[in-house]
């Protein structure tokens, strides 16, 4: 472990010489063959906001879940306020004053807020008194921390922001002194995130200790006092936030200097390939997800869609990819495509020359139990070229797959291996190989480098640019602003199901895009 800082440095809210609120020593945890945590040690001072960063799958959630008693560590010990504490289950963690807000909320969807809050913290075997006391207590806490929620609202009927409040209230209700938040801002708008951080600072100033897991370096720099970096199951460094920089953290995260610039020539846009007009999507719960989106992508250019997750980008990709039904108009090469009915599915889209690299490769892009060669034709199995009469041409497909795996540097290049046996980056390469080698007119790409290490990122970016240079139209959706800025020829920003505006990458900056992403149009609030 590389120690960049004296971690016992006192944060603002701490008493001098107090033992650290949390100390982990030599924690290891394996899930079957996957070593999620390797001999991790960490110490967090009382009254600090401590950040943890690391790539997807680095083991952050696992480590925190061990601290919270959700998983049991294979080895190692936990000290709370200097005392060695056994945390065999969450009960013990709660008793030790630890509260955790999970990346995926742990709420009972059809229970009320109040029921969720008291669950597990009931006063006696009967509910009557528990409920009335809890209602009072909850209202007090909610007022104290400005987190108003209706105690009788049913969870599935309130928004994610509200749900998150319930999770925090749950911890506070249990008198948590140590609060762990796992990627709390992924689902929040910038304004909601700001509110959350205000609350967190307030809690810290009361002497509570907070651990914040996030991917966003900006947030780390903004709110934390100290920060730890994890990589591949190991703790690579712990530093004081004031003494580091985003660049340094990024380097620590991936293990080498990060080159975020992409080399590309100026675009040579050709004729319009994709023309979208007034696209609207209403989901199962009758919520309007796309509120009249219009845009155009031309041959030989990359249109990047920026935005906070959950503002309609996924729906846009899904409509264009044939997964979701919609109203409005979409033209490919001047021809209208069906948005409802029998021919609005992925297969029809593919036949029209649209390829789609989905945002979630594991849930959509791949069949994890299928072999690589089967995945290499997944979605195109109907193609006569892949079939001989009634049967699929398995031998031919395997042979072709070998070539593609080589060209896209998929490791190991073994077509028989199941998709789940490849690492995330290699899985993504399989999807890209499949979609790009179809030589589509339009490529839809969602989060192409999510959970992919830096080496693979460079490769994937290059493939996308090569496709553009081959004169294809590309619609790129990413929540990573850097990626959008680096790859796009034009940038459209989505907020709340609408396009807030379009910018050219050279003529804008992250600040302006950030405002658009928060729904502030330049007229009102641009600098």
């Amino acid at each position: 472990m590389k120690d960049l800082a004296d971690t016992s440095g006192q944060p603002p809210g701490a008493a001098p010489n107090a033992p650290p609120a949390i100390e982990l020593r030599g924690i290891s945890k394996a899930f079957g063959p996957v070593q999620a945590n390797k001999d991790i040690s960490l110490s967090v001072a009382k009254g600090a906001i401590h950040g943890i960063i690391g790539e997807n799958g680095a083991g952050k959630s696992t480590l925190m879940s061990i601290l919270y008693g959700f998983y049991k560590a294979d080895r190692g010990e936990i000290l709370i306020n200097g005392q060695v504490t056994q945390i065999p289950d969450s009960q013990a963690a709660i008793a030790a004053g630890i509260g955790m807000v999970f990346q995926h909320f742990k709420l009972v969807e059809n229970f009320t807020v109040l029921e969720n809050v008291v669950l597990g913290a009931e006063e006696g075997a009967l509910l009557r008194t528990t409920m009335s006391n809890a209602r009072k207590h909850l209202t007090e806490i909610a007022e104290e921390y400005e987190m108003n929620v209706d105690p009788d609202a049913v969870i599935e009927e309130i928004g994610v922001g509200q749900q998150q409040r319930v999770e925090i209230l749950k911890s506070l209700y249990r008198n948590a002194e140590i609060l762990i938040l796992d990627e709390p801002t992924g689902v929040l708008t910038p304004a909601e995130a700001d509110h959350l951080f205000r609350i967190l600072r307030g809690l810290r100033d009361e002497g509570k200790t907070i651990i914040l897991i996030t991917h966003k370096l900006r947030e780390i720099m903004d709110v934390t006092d100290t920060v730890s970096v994890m990589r591949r199951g190991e703790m690579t460094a712990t530093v004081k936030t004031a003494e580091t920089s985003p660049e340094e953290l990024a380097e620590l995260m991936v293990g080498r200097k990060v080159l975020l610039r992409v080399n590309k020539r100026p675009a040579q846009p050709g004729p319009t390939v994709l023309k979208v007009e007034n696209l609207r999507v209403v989901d199962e719960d009758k919520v309007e997800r796309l509120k009249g989106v219009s845009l155009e992508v031309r041959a030989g250019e990359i249109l990047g869609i920026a935005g906070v997750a959950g503002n309609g980008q996924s729906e846009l990709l899904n409509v264009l990819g044939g997964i979701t039904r919609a109203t409005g108009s979409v033209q490919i090469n001047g021809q209208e495509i069906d948005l409802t009915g029998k021919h609005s599915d992925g297969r029809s889209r593919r036949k029209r020359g649209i390829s789609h690299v989905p945002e979630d490769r594991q849930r959509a892009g791949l069949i994890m139990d299928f072999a690589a060669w089967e995945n290499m034709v997944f979605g195109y199995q109907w193609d006569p070229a892949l079939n001989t009469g009634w049967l699929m041409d398995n031998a031919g497909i395997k042979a072709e797959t070998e070539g593609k795996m080589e060209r896209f540097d998929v490791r190991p290049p073994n077509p028989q291996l199941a998709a789940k046996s490849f690492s995330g980056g290699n899985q993504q390469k399989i999807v890209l190989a499949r979609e790009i080698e179809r030589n589509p007119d339009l490529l839809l790409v969602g989060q192409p480098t999510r959970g992919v290490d830096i080496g693979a990122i460079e490769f994937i970016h290059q493939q996308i640019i090569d496709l553009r240079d081959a004169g294809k139209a590309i619609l790129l959706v990413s929540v990573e602003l850097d990626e959008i800025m680096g790859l796009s020829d034009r940038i459209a920003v989505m907020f709340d199901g609408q396009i807030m505006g379009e910018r050219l990458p050279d003529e804008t900056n992250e600040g302006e895009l950030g405002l658009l992403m928060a729904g502030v149009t330049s007229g009102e609030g641009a600098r």
Partner: protein
Amino acid sequence: MDVMPKWADVVLVPVVSLLLAMVISALVILGIGEDPWAALKLMVQGSFGSTYGWGYTLFYATNFIFTGLAFAVASHASMFNIGAEGQATLGGLGVALVCLALPWPHWALALPAAMVGGALFGAAWAFLPAWLAAKRGSHIVITTIMFNFIGAAVLNYMLVNVMRPAGSMDPASAKFPDGTNLPSLHDILAVVGIPFSKSAPANLAFIIALIACVVVWLLIWRTRFGFELRAYGKSESAAVYAGISPTKIIVVAMLISGGLAGMMAVNNVMGEAERLVLNSVEGAGFIGIAVALMGRNHPLGILLAAILFGFLYQGGAELALWMSIPRELIVVIQGLVILFTGALDNMVRMPIEKIFLAIRRSKQAAGE
């Protein structure tokens, strides 16, 4: 990454599970005061010791191949079809209606028609549960259970009120015309000069079952539809991404499944009884579940498992006859086999996985 090599998953785990089931069965036999070893010998002798025994073993196996394949096809689409019992019941009705509809001149004409009739009726019985699952999200397990009961009532009504010949007291259909009688294995093997028991019921349907194994294998692993079906079964979200219609997969998979179950009737109704009787399926629909589980949903595995269960059935009948062990013993064994190979799979798998993991770790340690 897989913890275990494939052979361990496909062979070792089921075999160990089976052994456990057998050990408990032996204890049960001991418990009722009989000698398990003698029982086993008797069962083996009775089911494999003569062509007569073989004839019954294969006859039962034929039923189980059809229902096992039926369960497996639906399973690959992650549909838990436990309605094979009802589908086979209705298949019997279809076969009987076809056989009784015309004065068939020769079995070669009657057979394809009966196969179509059985498959059609079986598929029809699977259609509604499938459609409800696809369109209204109804739980396929519960609807197929319900349809088993409704199917039994339908057959009951048909036999008692419609198909019972005048003057007969039996709730059974009339005997099928001679032109529908399928050649038995005795007849078939006689052609190549192999002597085979004349009175055992194994018949041409066994050959059809073997063909069905090959066809199902081709369908699942070699055709586009099979590809889509397996893809849907593994991941619905990915299937939708790829433009595979869940409705189509669910409905077609269930129709094929029901059709296979229905075709079982060619064996027991047309091949053996040559008339339709109540409860002609005799639980084969449920045994299909065990057969498919043991056979890991693969036709070859299903064939082997079906023969195993055919052995249990025939051997069990022999036990009831020659030892004072009630025939229910095979129901117990059957339950144990399903329990161990299906529900308690992890009980066997987890320790075996641990062993493989330990071996791998130590190898890695040695390699480093």
